[in-house]
């Protein structure tokens, strides 16, 4: 039974509604993934080709030209692991920002929680993330030194990365319905954030300023990936920030969607 008043759905009802639509999400994510690569001859290869290419270019440029010092580990493993994680976050958030608006034709007249649309790229890009992390694990002993048990840290890092990406995506997708500038703001922020996260250069390079990087919620996650790929020390404070920010963004994003879910359509 559908019963609508001016008040937003209660949390329990909204979450149950999202859960009830998980099969649809699964289906849409599969199709999203397939349609993106179906017509390309190399298909799924492209999922990881871009981050790999980016990592190779950066590795060549910065290890030969700039010569960053990252201690014992290999710079190639360092930059590759960081780029792989970043590619998932940036690529997903970018697409998810406009997901609610772009999904208008699918969603305008049939009800389902709009969060489903946002979760589609989160889930579809997960394939790329998993493939690239597996590839990373395989390449670590080739381009650097095997890190032993630490390689398993890729699992919690991936989980946290997906959480942060989901939270961010939910928040910006809701904002984008109201402020269509959001798409460009997200683009700009992601562009800058790549350099405010220790992906291309090690945090130590900033000397006494390096502590500020810990405020970036992506830093802790990227550092965790570094630990897995290069055997560097486990991040402390940065990881705590990442976890707290992830939880906060997830709650804020879900709350934004819960409150506005049946009102988004009025602005599309």
């Amino acid at each position, binding site marked *: *039974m*559908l*019963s*609508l*008043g*001016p008040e*937003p759905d209660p949390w329990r009802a909204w979450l149950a509604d999202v859960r009830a639509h998980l*099969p*649809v999400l699964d*289906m*849409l994510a599969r*199709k999203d993934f397939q*349609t993106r690569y179906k017509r390309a001859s190399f298909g799924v290869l492209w999922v990881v080709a871009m981050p790999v290419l980016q990592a190779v270019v950066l590795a060549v440029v910065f290890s030969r030209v700039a010569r960053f010092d990252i201690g014992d580990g290999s710079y190639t493993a360092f930059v590759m692991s960081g780029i792989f994680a970043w590619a998932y976050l940036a690529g997903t958030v970018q697409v998810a920002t406009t997901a609610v608006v772009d999904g208008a*034709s*699918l*969603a*305008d*007249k*049939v*009800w*389902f929680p709009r969060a489903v649309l946002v979760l589609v790229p989160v889930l579809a890009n997960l394939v790329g993330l998993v493939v690239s992390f597996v590839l990373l694990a395989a390449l670590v002993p080739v381009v650097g030194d095997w890190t032993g048990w630490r390689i398993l840290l890729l699992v919690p890092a991936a989980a946290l990365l997906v959480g942060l990406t989901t939270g961010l995506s939910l928040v910006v997708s809701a904002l984008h319905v*109201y*402020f*269509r*500038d959001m798409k460009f703001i997200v683009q700009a922020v992601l562009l800058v954030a790549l350099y405010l996260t220790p992906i291309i250069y090690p945090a130590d390079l900033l000397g006494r300023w390096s502590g500020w990087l810990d405020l970036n919620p992506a830093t802790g996650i990227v550092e965790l990936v570094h630990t897995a790929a290069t055997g560097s020390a486990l991040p402390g404070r940065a990881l705590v920030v990442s976890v707290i920010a992830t939880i906060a963004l997830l709650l804020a994003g879900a709350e934004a969607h819960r409150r506005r879910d*049946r*009102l988004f*359509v*009025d*602005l599309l």
Partner: protein
Amino acid sequence: MTTAPGSDSAAIQLQGAGKRYDLLQDQAMLLRAVLPFRRPVRREHWALRDVDLAIEPGETVGILGRNGAGKTTLLRMLAGVSRPTEGHVTVRGRVAPLIGVGVGFHPEMTGRENIYVNGMLLGLSRAEVDARFDAIVDFSELHEFIDSPVKFYSSGMFMRLGFAVAVHTEPGVLLVDEVLAVGDIAFQLKCFARMRELQAVGTTILLVSHSMHAIRLLCPRAVLMSHGRVELDGPAESVIARHHELLSDEAGAVTASVAPVQVVERSLHNAAGDAHAVTQDDELVARFRLRFDTDVESPHLFFRILSEDGQLAYSMQTTIGQRHRTFLPGEHADIEVAFSPRLGGGGTYRTSLVVTDTSGAVALVSDEGGLLFYVTPRLGVIGPADLDASIRVDGVVLTEHEPMLLDDEA
């Protein structure tokens, strides 16, 4: 048939429901709305206000009204997509909305994939879609195209697929918004037949349509919306009549004010009085009152009947050059046109009166909006003309149609 609001058995119930849209001068200014320096101009618009409506399970109700009367907003709320700003909306049973062509479809996916997505969005499980898949494809008649991306589909094909999926979800409540109009006649008949089957199994159907035929054929009850409110709720015939009366009133309000001749009054009557829903055999009288602002010698008149889309269905003119009298500024002329609306397939028509000078060359006023009226179709006839054709096969006449009865009347 109608239940007082507050009943708890209704399939669809609205209690004081309203929907307000805040219209901004410019969408791009949304961001500025939160910035301090310049607040954009906001305008409130109530698309729906104070709507009380109760529809019992198994009822089929037509929704009429001009564009912007709130029909689509109403359906959106019933589909659960949009939340009321005030009041309450309750819908019992699985809702299958058929609102707009191609809605709920993903252009990049094939017809097959879209059947799954659409079916699942309408509340079926994957296994349930599996079980209905062949029936859906059969109904849509899209066998050859089912594995093509739907972005290559025509609007008619979209509609077939949408309708096929919706009716196969065995909905408790079916919401249909004008989508039938894009199908070809054969498919429309199939849809009507299917809707009758759904009626028979107790599905509640809400049909928004500008096709009075569709409403007359399917809906014993109709609701007329006007400016976001319920104007009339009752038997379809009387609601259709009221709809045309309103249309006539609003059309009448827009006469050009600079013409040398003004149409100051117009009305349409049959034997019973004011007429806006008429039968083929009615003897109608259209009356117009003209006021002259300059002197006009022996004006020449065209009385025309236009179809809904503005096509000329019929025209009768006075004899060109025939002298009758001269009208001075401030004088009135009463025009009376007696006619029978033998407009075969029936539908919505409007009158048009054109007044010219004696030669018929210079138009003095053209009253295009005119009076709107709905003509009951003669069974079996499509198109504005009625040539009284009969079809015989080996001597047996096959064109003597029995009136189709609504299920309620049977």
